[in-house]
Protein backbone atom coordinates (compact mmCIF):
# COMPACT_ATOMS: atom_id res chain seq x y z
CA UNK A 1 0.00 0.00 0.00
CA UNK A 2 2.90 2.30 0.76
CA UNK A 3 4.27 1.66 -2.70
CA UNK A 4 0.91 2.51 -4.21
CA UNK A 5 0.85 5.76 -2.26
CA UNK A 6 4.33 6.58 -3.49
CA UNK A 7 3.33 5.99 -7.07
CA UNK A 8 0.22 8.20 -6.85
CA UNK A 9 1.96 10.91 -4.82
CA UNK A 10 4.81 12.68 -6.54
CA UNK A 11 5.97 16.17 -5.55
CA UNK A 12 3.17 17.80 -7.54
CA UNK A 13 0.68 15.83 -5.50
CA UNK A 14 2.28 17.02 -2.25
CA UNK A 15 2.20 20.62 -3.40
CA UNK A 16 -1.48 20.30 -4.30
CA UNK A 17 -2.41 18.74 -0.96
CA UNK A 18 -0.46 21.36 0.93
CA UNK A 19 -2.12 24.02 -1.23
CA UNK A 20 -5.54 22.61 -0.46
CA UNK A 21 -5.03 22.88 3.31
CA UNK A 22 -3.48 26.31 2.95
CA UNK A 23 -6.44 27.66 0.98
CA UNK A 24 -8.87 26.09 3.44
CA UNK A 25 -6.95 27.67 6.33
CA UNK A 26 -6.80 31.10 4.68
CA UNK A 27 -10.47 30.97 3.73
CA UNK A 28 -11.36 30.39 7.40
CA UNK A 29 -8.98 33.03 8.74
CA UNK A 30 -10.20 35.63 6.22
CA UNK A 31 -13.81 34.57 6.84
CA UNK A 32 -14.61 34.30 3.17
CA UNK A 33 -18.34 33.93 2.39
CA UNK A 34 -19.56 30.61 3.78
CA UNK A 35 -16.43 29.98 5.81
CA UNK A 36 -17.36 32.08 8.83
CA UNK A 37 -18.74 29.10 10.76
CA UNK A 38 -16.11 26.64 9.49
CA UNK A 39 -13.28 25.12 11.48
CA UNK A 40 -9.83 25.60 10.03
CA UNK A 41 -7.48 22.62 9.62
CA UNK A 42 -5.40 23.48 12.70
CA UNK A 43 -8.49 23.60 14.89
CA UNK A 44 -9.58 20.26 13.52
CA UNK A 45 -6.23 18.66 14.24
CA UNK A 46 -6.13 20.15 17.75
CA UNK A 47 -9.63 18.95 18.47
CA UNK A 48 -8.83 15.49 17.14
CA UNK A 49 -5.66 15.06 19.16
CA UNK A 50 -7.12 16.49 22.36
CA UNK A 51 -10.57 14.93 22.44
CA UNK A 52 -10.96 12.17 19.86
CA UNK A 53 -7.77 10.21 19.30
CA UNK A 54 -8.11 8.58 22.73
CA UNK A 55 -11.87 8.61 22.88
CA UNK A 56 -13.56 5.21 22.99
CA UNK A 57 -16.82 6.66 21.76
CA UNK A 58 -15.13 7.91 18.59
CA UNK A 59 -13.47 4.59 17.76
CA UNK A 60 -16.69 2.77 18.56
CA UNK A 61 -18.34 4.85 15.82
CA UNK A 62 -15.82 3.36 13.39
CA UNK A 63 -16.54 -0.14 14.56
CA UNK A 64 -20.31 0.38 14.41
CA UNK A 65 -20.29 1.77 10.88
CA UNK A 66 -17.86 -0.87 9.64
CA UNK A 67 -20.03 -3.60 11.10
CA UNK A 68 -23.11 -2.27 9.35
CA UNK A 69 -21.28 -2.01 6.04
CA UNK A 70 -19.83 -5.47 6.46
CA UNK A 71 -23.15 -7.16 7.26
CA UNK A 72 -25.05 -5.29 4.55
CA UNK A 73 -22.34 -6.05 2.01
CA UNK A 74 -22.00 -9.72 2.96
CA UNK A 75 -25.74 -10.37 2.95
CA UNK A 76 -25.96 -8.63 -0.43
CA UNK A 77 -23.28 -11.00 -1.80
CA UNK A 78 -24.81 -14.01 -0.12
CA UNK A 79 -28.24 -13.47 -1.66
CA UNK A 80 -27.29 -11.43 -4.71
CA UNK A 81 -24.78 -13.80 -6.34
CA UNK A 82 -27.06 -16.89 -6.31
CA UNK A 83 -30.04 -14.82 -7.47
CA UNK A 84 -28.03 -13.35 -10.33
CA UNK A 85 -26.86 -16.84 -11.31
CA UNK A 86 -30.45 -18.12 -11.20
CA UNK A 87 -31.69 -15.23 -13.36
CA UNK A 88 -28.91 -15.95 -15.83
CA UNK A 89 -29.27 -19.70 -16.05
CA UNK A 90 -32.93 -20.55 -15.41
CA UNK A 91 -35.36 -19.11 -17.92
CA UNK A 92 -38.51 -20.09 -16.02
CA UNK A 93 -37.23 -18.58 -12.82
CA UNK A 94 -36.25 -15.42 -14.69
CA UNK A 95 -39.65 -15.10 -16.38
CA UNK A 96 -41.35 -15.55 -13.03
CA UNK A 97 -39.33 -13.29 -10.76
CA UNK A 98 -37.37 -10.82 -12.86
CA UNK A 99 -40.35 -8.46 -13.34
CA UNK A 100 -40.77 -8.17 -9.54
CA UNK A 101 -37.06 -7.52 -9.23
CA UNK A 102 -37.18 -4.82 -11.89
CA UNK A 103 -40.17 -3.26 -10.15
CA UNK A 104 -38.25 -2.88 -6.88
CA UNK A 105 -34.85 -2.01 -8.34
CA UNK A 106 -35.48 1.67 -9.19
CA UNK A 107 -36.54 2.48 -5.59
CA UNK A 108 -33.55 4.28 -4.04
CA UNK A 109 -32.17 2.54 -0.93
CA UNK A 110 -32.97 5.51 1.31
CA UNK A 111 -36.62 5.36 0.28
CA UNK A 112 -36.69 2.06 2.16
CA UNK A 113 -35.78 3.73 5.46
CA UNK A 114 -39.27 4.30 6.93
CA UNK A 115 -40.58 0.91 5.87
CA UNK A 116 -37.46 -0.77 7.11
CA UNK A 117 -37.84 0.81 10.55
CA UNK A 118 -41.46 -0.35 10.69
CA UNK A 119 -40.63 -3.83 9.53
CA UNK A 120 -37.49 -4.78 11.45
CA UNK A 121 -37.59 -5.26 15.20
CA UNK A 122 -34.37 -3.39 16.01
CA UNK A 123 -32.86 -0.21 14.73
CA UNK A 124 -29.64 -2.04 13.97
CA UNK A 125 -31.31 -4.62 11.76
CA UNK A 126 -33.20 -1.96 9.81
CA UNK A 127 -29.98 -0.05 9.08
CA UNK A 128 -28.27 -3.25 7.97
CA UNK A 129 -31.25 -4.01 5.77
CA UNK A 130 -31.07 -0.60 4.06
CA UNK A 131 -27.35 -1.10 3.52
CA UNK A 132 -28.08 -4.53 2.11
CA UNK A 133 -30.62 -3.07 -0.33
CA UNK A 134 -28.01 -0.57 -1.53
CA UNK A 135 -25.63 -3.28 -2.73
CA UNK A 136 -28.04 -6.10 -3.46
CA UNK A 137 -29.62 -4.88 -6.72
CA UNK A 138 -26.28 -3.83 -8.19
CA UNK A 139 -24.74 -7.22 -7.43
CA UNK A 140 -27.66 -9.18 -8.89
CA UNK A 141 -27.65 -7.16 -12.11
CA UNK A 142 -23.90 -7.53 -12.51
CA UNK A 143 -23.89 -11.28 -11.98
CA UNK A 144 -26.88 -11.66 -14.30
CA UNK A 145 -25.05 -9.70 -17.02
CA UNK A 146 -21.97 -11.79 -16.36
CA UNK A 147 -23.86 -15.01 -17.02
CA UNK A 148 -25.33 -13.62 -20.23
CA UNK A 149 -21.87 -12.55 -21.42
CA UNK A 150 -20.32 -16.00 -21.04
CA UNK A 151 -18.70 -16.81 -24.37
CA UNK A 152 -20.61 -19.60 -26.09
CA UNK A 153 -17.28 -20.97 -27.35
CA UNK A 154 -16.21 -21.51 -23.75
CA UNK A 155 -19.33 -23.58 -23.07
CA UNK A 156 -19.20 -25.42 -26.39
CA UNK A 157 -15.60 -26.42 -25.87
CA UNK A 158 -16.40 -27.90 -22.45
CA UNK A 159 -19.45 -29.68 -23.86
CA UNK A 160 -17.53 -31.24 -26.72
CA UNK A 161 -14.80 -32.41 -24.35
CA UNK A 162 -17.50 -34.34 -22.49
CA UNK A 163 -17.79 -32.28 -19.30
CA UNK A 164 -20.88 -33.04 -17.20
CA UNK A 165 -23.22 -30.19 -16.23
CA UNK A 166 -21.86 -29.87 -12.71
CA UNK A 167 -18.30 -29.45 -14.00
CA UNK A 168 -19.44 -26.93 -16.61
CA UNK A 169 -21.12 -24.90 -13.88
CA UNK A 170 -18.22 -25.03 -11.44
CA UNK A 171 -15.26 -24.71 -13.77
CA UNK A 172 -16.59 -22.73 -16.73
CA UNK A 173 -19.63 -20.70 -15.72
CA UNK A 174 -18.59 -19.63 -12.23
CA UNK A 175 -15.09 -18.47 -13.21
CA UNK A 176 -16.64 -16.66 -16.20
CA UNK A 177 -18.80 -14.54 -13.92
CA UNK A 178 -16.11 -13.84 -11.31
CA UNK A 179 -15.06 -10.61 -13.07
CA UNK A 180 -18.70 -9.47 -12.98
CA UNK A 181 -18.97 -10.41 -9.32
CA UNK A 182 -15.86 -8.29 -8.73
CA UNK A 183 -17.42 -5.29 -10.51
CA UNK A 184 -20.51 -5.78 -8.35
CA UNK A 185 -18.32 -5.83 -5.25
CA UNK A 186 -16.48 -2.62 -6.16
CA UNK A 187 -19.72 -0.76 -6.86
CA UNK A 188 -21.41 -2.45 -3.91
CA UNK A 189 -18.87 -1.43 -1.28
CA UNK A 190 -18.98 2.20 -2.45
CA UNK A 191 -22.74 2.36 -2.29
CA UNK A 192 -22.98 0.62 1.09
CA UNK A 193 -20.90 3.42 2.58
CA UNK A 194 -23.13 6.02 0.91
CA UNK A 195 -26.20 4.36 2.27
CA UNK A 196 -24.94 3.59 5.75
CA UNK A 197 -23.85 7.18 6.37
CA UNK A 198 -27.19 8.61 5.23
CA UNK A 199 -29.13 6.01 7.19
CA UNK A 200 -27.12 6.77 10.32
CA UNK A 201 -27.87 10.47 9.99
CA UNK A 202 -31.60 9.81 9.61
CA UNK A 203 -32.26 6.89 11.87
CA UNK A 204 -29.48 6.03 14.25
CA UNK A 205 -27.74 7.23 17.40
CA UNK A 206 -24.36 5.74 16.57
CA UNK A 207 -21.80 5.38 13.81
CA UNK A 208 -19.64 7.80 11.82
CA UNK A 209 -22.64 9.28 10.02
CA UNK A 210 -24.27 10.10 13.33
CA UNK A 211 -20.99 11.56 14.65
CA UNK A 212 -20.82 13.91 11.69
CA UNK A 213 -24.44 14.90 12.08
CA UNK A 214 -23.91 15.59 15.79
CA UNK A 215 -21.07 17.93 14.85
CA UNK A 216 -23.59 19.93 12.86
CA UNK A 217 -26.38 19.84 15.43
CA UNK A 218 -24.11 20.84 18.30
CA UNK A 219 -22.47 23.60 16.23
CA UNK A 220 -18.99 22.14 16.60
CA UNK A 221 -17.69 22.33 13.03
CA UNK A 222 -14.42 20.61 14.05
CA UNK A 223 -16.38 17.42 14.80
CA UNK A 224 -18.17 17.65 11.50
CA UNK A 225 -14.86 17.75 9.64
CA UNK A 226 -13.41 14.91 11.74
CA UNK A 227 -16.48 12.86 10.84
CA UNK A 228 -16.16 13.59 7.13
CA UNK A 229 -12.48 12.74 7.01
CA UNK A 230 -13.11 9.53 8.98
CA UNK A 231 -15.84 8.48 6.56
CA UNK A 232 -13.56 9.18 3.60
CA UNK A 233 -10.78 7.11 5.15
CA UNK A 234 -13.14 4.28 6.03
CA UNK A 235 -14.44 4.14 2.47
CA UNK A 236 -10.91 4.21 1.10
CA UNK A 237 -9.79 1.36 3.36
CA UNK A 238 -12.84 -0.76 2.48
CA UNK A 239 -12.22 -0.27 -1.23
CA UNK A 240 -8.60 -1.34 -0.76
CA UNK A 241 -9.66 -4.49 1.05
CA UNK A 242 -12.26 -5.32 -1.60
CA UNK A 243 -9.72 -4.74 -4.38
CA UNK A 244 -7.29 -7.11 -2.67
CA UNK A 245 -9.98 -9.77 -2.40
CA UNK A 246 -10.84 -9.28 -6.07
CA UNK A 247 -7.24 -9.77 -7.12
CA UNK A 248 -7.13 -12.97 -5.07
CA UNK A 249 -10.31 -14.14 -6.80
CA UNK A 250 -8.82 -13.61 -10.27
CA UNK A 251 -5.20 -14.77 -10.22
CA UNK A 252 -5.23 -14.91 -14.02
CA UNK A 253 -5.91 -11.20 -14.23
CA UNK A 254 -2.89 -10.23 -12.19
CA UNK A 255 -0.42 -11.51 -14.70
CA UNK A 256 0.93 -9.43 -17.49
CA UNK A 257 3.00 -10.70 -20.32
Amino acid at each position, binding site marked *: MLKQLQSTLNWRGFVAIFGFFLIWYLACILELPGFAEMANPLEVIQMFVREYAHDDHYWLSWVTSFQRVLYGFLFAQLFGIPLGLLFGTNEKFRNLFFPVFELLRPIPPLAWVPMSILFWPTNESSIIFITFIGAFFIIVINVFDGVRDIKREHL*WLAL*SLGAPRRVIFMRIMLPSVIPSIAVGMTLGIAITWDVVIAAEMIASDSGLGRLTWEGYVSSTPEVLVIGMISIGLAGYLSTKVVNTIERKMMPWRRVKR
Partner: protein
Amino acid sequence: MAEGEALSTSEVHGTKSDNAGIWLDKVSKSFSSPDAGKIQVFQELSVNFEPNKLHVVMGASGCGKSTLGYLLAGFISPDQGNVGLGPNAVRKPGPERLLVFQETALWPWMTVLDNVIFGPKVRGDADAREAKDAAQTLLRKFGLAEFADKYPDQLSGGMKRRAEIAQALINRPEVMILDEPFRGLDVMTREILQEYYLDLFEETRQTTVFITSELEEALFLADKIYIMGDQPAQILDIIDVDLPRPRDFEVTVSKKYLEYKEQAIELLFQSEES
Protein backbone atom coordinates in the same frame (compact mmCIF):
# COMPACT_ATOMS: atom_id res chain seq x y z
CA MET B 1 -22.60 -49.81 -24.69
CA ALA B 2 -22.86 -47.08 -27.31
CA GLU B 3 -19.34 -47.84 -28.42
CA GLY B 4 -20.16 -51.51 -28.89
CA GLU B 5 -23.10 -50.58 -31.04
CA ALA B 6 -20.97 -48.33 -33.16
CA LEU B 7 -18.47 -51.11 -33.70
CA SER B 8 -21.01 -53.69 -34.79
CA THR B 9 -22.68 -51.31 -37.24
CA SER B 10 -19.38 -50.32 -38.71
CA GLU B 11 -18.51 -53.96 -39.23
CA VAL B 12 -21.67 -54.36 -41.28
CA HIS B 13 -20.62 -51.44 -43.41
CA GLY B 14 -17.14 -52.81 -43.66
CA THR B 15 -15.41 -49.69 -42.31
CA LYS B 16 -13.41 -49.23 -39.18
CA SER B 17 -14.96 -46.65 -36.93
CA ASP B 18 -11.62 -45.04 -36.10
CA ASN B 19 -11.15 -44.61 -39.80
CA ALA B 20 -14.44 -42.97 -40.54
CA GLY B 21 -15.25 -39.95 -42.60
CA ILE B 22 -17.53 -37.18 -41.48
CA TRP B 23 -20.54 -36.09 -43.49
CA LEU B 24 -23.61 -33.95 -43.94
CA ASP B 25 -26.63 -35.50 -45.61
CA LYS B 26 -29.31 -33.17 -47.05
CA VAL B 27 -28.84 -30.71 -44.23
CA SER B 28 -31.07 -27.66 -44.08
CA LYS B 29 -30.52 -24.93 -41.56
CA SER B 30 -32.01 -21.50 -41.17
CA PHE B 31 -31.51 -18.72 -38.69
CA SER B 32 -33.86 -15.91 -37.90
CA SER B 33 -32.45 -12.47 -37.26
CA PRO B 34 -34.40 -9.41 -36.15
CA ASP B 35 -33.45 -7.27 -39.20
CA ALA B 36 -33.33 -9.75 -42.05
CA GLY B 37 -35.99 -12.21 -40.93
CA LYS B 38 -35.42 -15.86 -41.72
CA ILE B 39 -32.17 -16.68 -43.50
CA GLN B 40 -31.82 -20.06 -45.13
CA VAL B 41 -28.12 -20.79 -44.64
CA PHE B 42 -28.16 -24.40 -45.86
CA GLN B 43 -30.64 -25.99 -48.24
CA GLU B 44 -30.31 -29.77 -48.48
CA LEU B 45 -26.54 -29.63 -48.44
CA SER B 46 -24.68 -32.92 -48.68
CA VAL B 47 -20.93 -33.12 -48.20
CA ASN B 48 -18.68 -36.06 -47.48
CA PHE B 49 -15.23 -35.69 -46.00
CA GLU B 50 -13.09 -38.79 -46.40
CA PRO B 51 -11.04 -40.34 -43.63
CA ASN B 52 -7.36 -39.49 -43.23
CA LYS B 53 -7.45 -36.57 -45.61
CA LEU B 54 -6.94 -32.90 -45.07
CA HIS B 55 -9.99 -31.15 -46.46
CA VAL B 56 -9.99 -27.42 -46.79
CA VAL B 57 -13.32 -25.63 -47.01
CA MET B 58 -12.87 -22.30 -48.72
CA GLY B 59 -15.24 -19.48 -49.33
CA ALA B 60 -15.88 -15.79 -48.82
CA SER B 61 -16.65 -14.68 -45.29
CA GLY B 62 -20.31 -14.97 -44.42
CA CYS B 63 -20.96 -17.91 -46.73
CA GLY B 64 -21.70 -20.28 -43.85
CA LYS B 65 -18.28 -21.89 -43.36
CA SER B 66 -18.38 -21.53 -39.60
CA THR B 67 -21.93 -22.85 -39.50
CA LEU B 68 -20.68 -25.90 -41.39
CA GLY B 69 -18.01 -26.37 -38.72
CA TYR B 70 -20.52 -25.96 -35.88
CA LEU B 71 -22.85 -28.51 -37.49
CA LEU B 72 -20.03 -31.04 -37.85
CA ALA B 73 -18.96 -30.46 -34.25
CA GLY B 74 -22.57 -30.79 -33.08
CA PHE B 75 -22.83 -27.33 -31.51
CA ILE B 76 -25.91 -26.63 -33.59
CA SER B 77 -28.36 -29.17 -34.98
CA PRO B 78 -29.75 -29.24 -38.50
CA ASP B 79 -33.40 -28.33 -39.08
CA GLN B 80 -33.56 -31.24 -41.49
CA GLY B 81 -31.13 -33.91 -42.62
CA ASN B 82 -28.33 -35.60 -40.75
CA VAL B 83 -24.75 -35.06 -39.70
CA GLY B 84 -22.70 -38.16 -39.15
CA LEU B 85 -19.38 -39.72 -38.39
CA GLY B 86 -18.69 -43.04 -40.10
CA PRO B 87 -21.90 -45.04 -40.15
CA ASN B 88 -23.60 -43.13 -37.35
CA ALA B 89 -25.56 -39.94 -37.26
CA VAL B 90 -24.45 -37.56 -34.51
CA ARG B 91 -26.60 -35.03 -32.68
CA LYS B 92 -24.47 -33.69 -29.87
CA PRO B 93 -20.93 -32.38 -29.44
CA GLY B 94 -18.41 -35.04 -28.49
CA PRO B 95 -14.68 -35.58 -27.99
CA GLU B 96 -14.39 -37.58 -31.21
CA ARG B 97 -15.12 -34.42 -33.26
CA LEU B 98 -13.25 -31.44 -31.88
CA LEU B 99 -13.27 -27.94 -33.24
CA VAL B 100 -10.54 -25.35 -32.85
CA PHE B 101 -12.25 -21.96 -32.78
CA GLN B 102 -11.53 -18.92 -34.86
CA GLU B 103 -10.79 -16.75 -31.87
CA THR B 104 -9.14 -18.32 -28.90
CA ALA B 105 -11.46 -20.38 -26.73
CA LEU B 106 -8.86 -21.29 -24.11
CA TRP B 107 -10.33 -20.67 -20.68
CA PRO B 108 -8.41 -17.67 -19.34
CA TRP B 109 -8.81 -18.71 -15.69
CA MET B 110 -7.00 -22.03 -16.19
CA THR B 111 -3.30 -22.48 -16.79
CA VAL B 112 -2.21 -23.86 -20.13
CA LEU B 113 -1.72 -27.28 -18.54
CA ASP B 114 -5.18 -27.26 -16.92
CA ASN B 115 -6.69 -26.23 -20.25
CA VAL B 116 -5.00 -29.13 -22.01
CA ILE B 117 -5.83 -31.85 -19.47
CA PHE B 118 -9.45 -30.70 -19.04
CA GLY B 119 -10.85 -33.23 -21.52
CA PRO B 120 -9.21 -36.44 -20.24
CA LYS B 121 -9.78 -35.31 -16.66
CA VAL B 122 -13.50 -34.57 -16.85
CA ARG B 123 -14.22 -37.77 -18.75
CA GLY B 124 -12.15 -39.77 -16.28
CA ASP B 125 -10.23 -41.35 -19.18
CA ALA B 126 -6.99 -41.28 -17.30
CA ASP B 127 -5.98 -40.72 -13.72
CA ALA B 128 -4.62 -37.31 -12.90
CA ARG B 129 -0.98 -38.30 -13.25
CA GLU B 130 -1.38 -40.03 -16.60
CA ALA B 131 -3.29 -37.06 -17.96
CA LYS B 132 -0.63 -34.69 -16.70
CA ASP B 133 2.19 -36.74 -18.22
CA ALA B 134 0.40 -36.96 -21.56
CA ALA B 135 -0.26 -33.22 -21.52
CA GLN B 136 3.33 -32.41 -20.70
CA THR B 137 4.61 -34.65 -23.48
CA LEU B 138 2.27 -32.93 -25.90
CA LEU B 139 3.22 -29.46 -24.69
CA ARG B 140 6.90 -30.31 -25.06
CA LYS B 141 6.24 -31.43 -28.61
CA PHE B 142 4.43 -28.17 -29.26
CA GLY B 143 7.27 -26.10 -27.79
CA LEU B 144 5.14 -25.00 -24.87
CA ALA B 145 6.78 -26.98 -22.05
CA GLU B 146 7.92 -23.84 -20.25
CA PHE B 147 4.49 -22.29 -20.51
CA ALA B 148 2.51 -25.10 -18.89
CA ASP B 149 1.89 -23.07 -15.72
CA LYS B 150 1.19 -19.78 -17.47
CA TYR B 151 -2.26 -18.40 -18.12
CA PRO B 152 -3.44 -18.07 -21.74
CA ASP B 153 -3.26 -14.27 -21.64
CA GLN B 154 0.49 -14.57 -21.05
CA LEU B 155 0.94 -16.37 -24.37
CA SER B 156 1.45 -14.89 -27.82
CA GLY B 157 -1.21 -15.44 -30.48
CA GLY B 158 0.74 -18.24 -32.15
CA MET B 159 1.35 -20.01 -28.86
CA LYS B 160 -2.34 -19.84 -27.99
CA ARG B 161 -3.14 -21.52 -31.29
CA ARG B 162 -0.67 -24.30 -30.59
CA ALA B 163 -2.02 -24.76 -27.07
CA GLU B 164 -5.53 -25.09 -28.48
CA ILE B 165 -4.46 -27.70 -30.97
CA ALA B 166 -2.80 -29.60 -28.10
CA GLN B 167 -5.98 -29.22 -26.03
CA ALA B 168 -7.90 -30.98 -28.81
CA LEU B 169 -5.30 -33.58 -29.80
CA ILE B 170 -4.85 -34.99 -26.29
CA ASN B 171 -8.38 -36.41 -26.61
CA ARG B 172 -7.39 -38.37 -29.73
CA PRO B 173 -10.35 -37.15 -31.76
CA GLU B 174 -11.29 -38.98 -34.93
CA VAL B 175 -11.84 -35.70 -36.71
CA MET B 176 -10.29 -32.29 -36.22
CA ILE B 177 -12.26 -29.30 -37.40
CA LEU B 178 -10.34 -26.03 -37.54
CA ASP B 179 -12.33 -22.85 -38.11
CA GLU B 180 -9.95 -20.28 -39.63
CA PRO B 181 -7.49 -21.10 -36.87
CA PHE B 182 -4.69 -18.85 -38.04
CA ARG B 183 -6.77 -15.81 -38.83
CA GLY B 184 -5.54 -12.59 -37.28
CA LEU B 185 -1.97 -13.77 -36.82
CA ASP B 186 0.91 -11.97 -38.47
CA VAL B 187 2.21 -13.42 -41.72
CA MET B 188 5.35 -14.97 -40.21
CA THR B 189 3.54 -16.70 -37.37
CA ARG B 190 0.88 -17.81 -39.74
CA GLU B 191 3.32 -19.46 -42.12
CA ILE B 192 5.14 -21.14 -39.28
CA LEU B 193 1.89 -22.54 -37.94
CA GLN B 194 0.77 -23.70 -41.37
CA GLU B 195 3.98 -25.63 -41.78
CA TYR B 196 3.58 -26.88 -38.25
CA TYR B 197 0.07 -28.15 -38.82
CA LEU B 198 1.12 -29.71 -42.10
CA ASP B 199 3.91 -31.67 -40.39
CA LEU B 200 1.47 -32.79 -37.74
CA PHE B 201 -1.01 -33.97 -40.33
CA GLU B 202 1.58 -35.75 -42.41
CA GLU B 203 2.70 -37.57 -39.29
CA THR B 204 -0.77 -38.60 -38.07
CA ARG B 205 -2.98 -38.42 -41.19
CA GLN B 206 -5.74 -37.29 -38.94
CA THR B 207 -9.05 -36.65 -40.70
CA THR B 208 -9.21 -32.87 -40.85
CA VAL B 209 -11.71 -30.26 -41.97
CA PHE B 210 -9.84 -26.99 -42.22
CA ILE B 211 -11.92 -23.88 -42.83
CA THR B 212 -10.24 -20.84 -44.33
CA SER B 213 -10.77 -17.89 -46.62
CA GLU B 214 -7.16 -17.80 -47.82
CA LEU B 215 -6.42 -19.50 -51.10
CA GLU B 216 -2.69 -19.91 -50.51
CA GLU B 217 -3.28 -21.53 -47.15
CA ALA B 218 -5.81 -23.86 -48.77
CA LEU B 219 -3.48 -24.91 -51.58
CA PHE B 220 -0.51 -25.41 -49.32
CA LEU B 221 -2.36 -27.67 -46.86
CA ALA B 222 -5.11 -29.46 -48.71
CA ASP B 223 -5.66 -32.88 -50.17
CA LYS B 224 -8.98 -31.56 -51.37
CA ILE B 225 -10.35 -28.06 -51.54
CA TYR B 226 -14.11 -27.58 -51.24
CA ILE B 227 -15.11 -24.27 -52.75
CA MET B 228 -18.17 -22.97 -51.02
CA GLY B 229 -20.72 -20.48 -52.30
CA ASP B 230 -23.51 -18.83 -50.42
CA GLN B 231 -27.25 -18.23 -50.25
CA PRO B 232 -27.86 -21.01 -49.67
CA ALA B 233 -24.45 -22.44 -48.93
CA GLN B 234 -23.33 -25.07 -51.38
CA ILE B 235 -20.18 -26.81 -52.48
CA LEU B 236 -19.51 -25.32 -55.92
CA ASP B 237 -16.54 -27.46 -56.76
CA ILE B 238 -13.97 -29.81 -55.31
CA ILE B 239 -10.33 -29.50 -56.34
CA ASP B 240 -8.10 -32.52 -55.79
CA VAL B 241 -4.75 -31.06 -54.85
CA ASP B 242 -2.30 -33.69 -55.99
CA LEU B 243 0.88 -32.14 -54.67
CA PRO B 244 3.50 -34.48 -53.20
CA ARG B 245 3.73 -34.95 -49.44
CA PRO B 246 5.57 -34.19 -47.25
CA ARG B 247 5.31 -30.61 -48.43
CA ASP B 248 7.24 -27.51 -47.52
CA PHE B 249 7.06 -23.95 -48.74
CA GLU B 250 9.04 -24.79 -51.88
CA VAL B 251 5.93 -26.44 -53.20
CA THR B 252 4.34 -23.01 -53.51
CA VAL B 253 6.62 -22.10 -56.41
CA SER B 254 6.15 -25.38 -58.30
CA LYS B 255 4.42 -25.37 -61.67
CA LYS B 256 1.67 -27.69 -60.49
CA TYR B 257 0.87 -25.45 -57.51
CA LEU B 258 0.53 -22.45 -59.78
CA GLU B 259 -1.77 -24.39 -62.09
CA TYR B 260 -3.99 -25.31 -59.17
CA LYS B 261 -3.97 -21.73 -58.08
CA GLU B 262 -5.12 -20.53 -61.47
CA GLN B 263 -7.84 -23.14 -61.54
CA ALA B 264 -9.02 -22.17 -58.08
CA ILE B 265 -9.06 -18.46 -58.84
CA GLU B 266 -11.15 -19.12 -61.92
CA LEU B 267 -13.64 -21.14 -59.89
CA LEU B 268 -13.80 -18.47 -57.21
CA PHE B 269 -14.49 -15.79 -59.81
CA GLN B 270 -17.24 -17.88 -61.32
CA SER B 271 -18.79 -18.31 -57.90
CA GLU B 272 -18.72 -14.55 -57.40
CA GLU B 273 -20.47 -13.93 -60.71
CA SER B 274 -23.16 -16.56 -60.36
